[in-house]
């Protein structure tokens, strides 16, 4: 009942993922738990109304301060039907984008590790959100997603079961999947 690697002997799959580096990192970090402690962060500045701008650049990991090669910014806002200006994606949509990005990165990595050549990977993520929660209309309705559905469309050199197994493994190792599926302690303070 072990997961047998497809084509591992002649692993010519190239999905652009440096699997050797990932496996090497895994090996190295098993003996160095402190180095595995990362902190990701984003800064945010209000622009106007429900529009604000988030930026990522610095993070911490491998025992040292790290940085993206350049800052990346995203404007978030509410849409017109919320009587707002639609200057960017809504924050909940950013979470769905994060989930898609994380699962897809996982699909590419797992597929490569298993010798599966991907030709195309597309996904649609939907989050059901009952605004009676955030509008304070009904205390029994949660503010967040009532459910999330991800639909993958994948063209690859593998059987349907093999592709499904890649998707299953991607979820098992996805940071954002865990962040959305499981509870996380959040502390918000005023400096």
């Amino acid at each position, binding site marked *: *009942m*072990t*997961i*047998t*690697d497809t084509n591992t002997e002649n692993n010519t799959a190239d999905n652009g993922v440096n699997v050797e580096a990932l496996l090497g990192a895994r090996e190295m970090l098993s003996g160095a738990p402190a180095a595995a402690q990362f902190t990701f962060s984003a800064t945010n500045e209000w622009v106007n109304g429900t529009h604000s701008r988030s930026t990522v650049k610095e993070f911490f990991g491998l025992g040292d301060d790290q940085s993206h090669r350049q800052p990346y910014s995203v404007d978030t806002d509410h849409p017109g039907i919320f009587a707002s200006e639609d200057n960017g994606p809504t924050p909940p949509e950013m979470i769905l984008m994060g989930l898609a990005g994380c699962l897809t990165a996982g699909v590419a990595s797992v597929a490569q590790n298993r010798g599966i050549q991907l030709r195309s990977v597309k996904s649609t993520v939907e989050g059901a959100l009952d605004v009676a929660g955030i509008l304070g209309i009904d205390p029994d309705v949660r503010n967040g997603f009532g*459910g*999330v559905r991800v639909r993958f469309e994948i063209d690859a050199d593998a059987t349907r*079961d093999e592709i*499904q*197994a890649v998707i*299953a*493994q991607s*979820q*098992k190792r996805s940071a954002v*999947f*865990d962040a*959305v*599926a*499981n*509870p996380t302690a959040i502390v918000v303070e005023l400096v």
Partner: protein
Amino acid sequence: MNPTRTTDVVVIGGGQAGLAMSQCLTVQSIDHVVLERGDTANSWRTERWDSLRLLTPNWLARLPGWSYRGDDPDGYMSATEVAAHLDAYRISISAPIRTGVEVIRITSTGGRHVVETNDGPWSARAVVMATGASSNPHVPGVAGDVPGHIQHVTPIGYRNPSQLAEGGVLVVGASASGLQIADELSRSGMEVTLAVGDHVRLPRTYRGMDIHWWMDTIGQLDERYDEVDDLDRARRLPSLQLIGSPERRDLDLTTVARNGVALAGRLVGRSGNRAQFSGSFANMCTSADLKERRLLDRLDEYAASHGLDAELGEATRPSPTASSPPLLETDLRSINTIVWATGFRPAYPWLDADLLDHKGRLVHDGGVLPVPGLYALGLPFMRRRKSSFLDGVGPDATDIAEHLVGHLAHDIAHSNI
């Protein structure tokens, strides 16, 4: 209290592993003693629930020089019957067993191992720890965080539904024990919620043959520890969602859900009065379904390539797990009992802490410890996939005995210098 007694080998544990080891040592004419804290097959007598039956069919209870002697080789023995099977074995091999002896400490110095017990010390040239892998139930930290009115039960303490208080039961863990207990409680009329994490499902029979017949036949149970990709993961595999029953029925999530058990994701926390469950339930089920399909594909391939298709039945595949959307939380005020079917961790309170890793696990290579003369037996996938099964301790004991003989010979050679 006895003065120090001397022998070549001390075997700790008088269950199937200890007895198998004893037989292998006897065959090699090695002087030894078996120390058992209770009675022969103690855990089978005192730590199993009333309706428990083996997961494996009776013919798969082979031991060195012994096999099932009953009249139902394809059936599944009860715990009492297993104890009787092992008792008969003990008598037949004249195992030098001392009952009521509890090991307190093992100290190893220069090739000698002193085993301190409640009955006085033993000095030996080798020690085989055959205490099994199911001694200490593992209860996750969140247990300490639930309301005080809740009664906590583990599979070691569970006996039957009447022992639980009325009201809701939360069973945490959906491997063999959790699923069987949830099923039994729900059939007795109790309201059961089952928290489901990683699990492995298989049909009881496939194409007319018991699933363990298949696994034994294709050689999977004999897979060696040095042949698997991820040994750590293989050793942590949850027990199969199976039950041993005269009807050879399947036991899976769809069935228990249909019988009224409310399914939830993995228990991941508590917030106020609510127990929180993971939203990963769908993936847990899909993963289990895929894994089952992979194994059944492998079985079909084996049958085809070994010309078995003609005599085997048709391949009827189990349906994918089907249940209504799982619970994400439940109110702990309506739960009166939590059954922690969350696995076991072996414990070695009598061993030096530096023989264990940072998670309290024994450091060993196929049962051979780094300290010369110390061995283990009966651990999950210790040397083979079936190492912790009744049928697995024999081949492992034979291997360990071979290594031990070499150790004793080397020991003598050096002590004569």
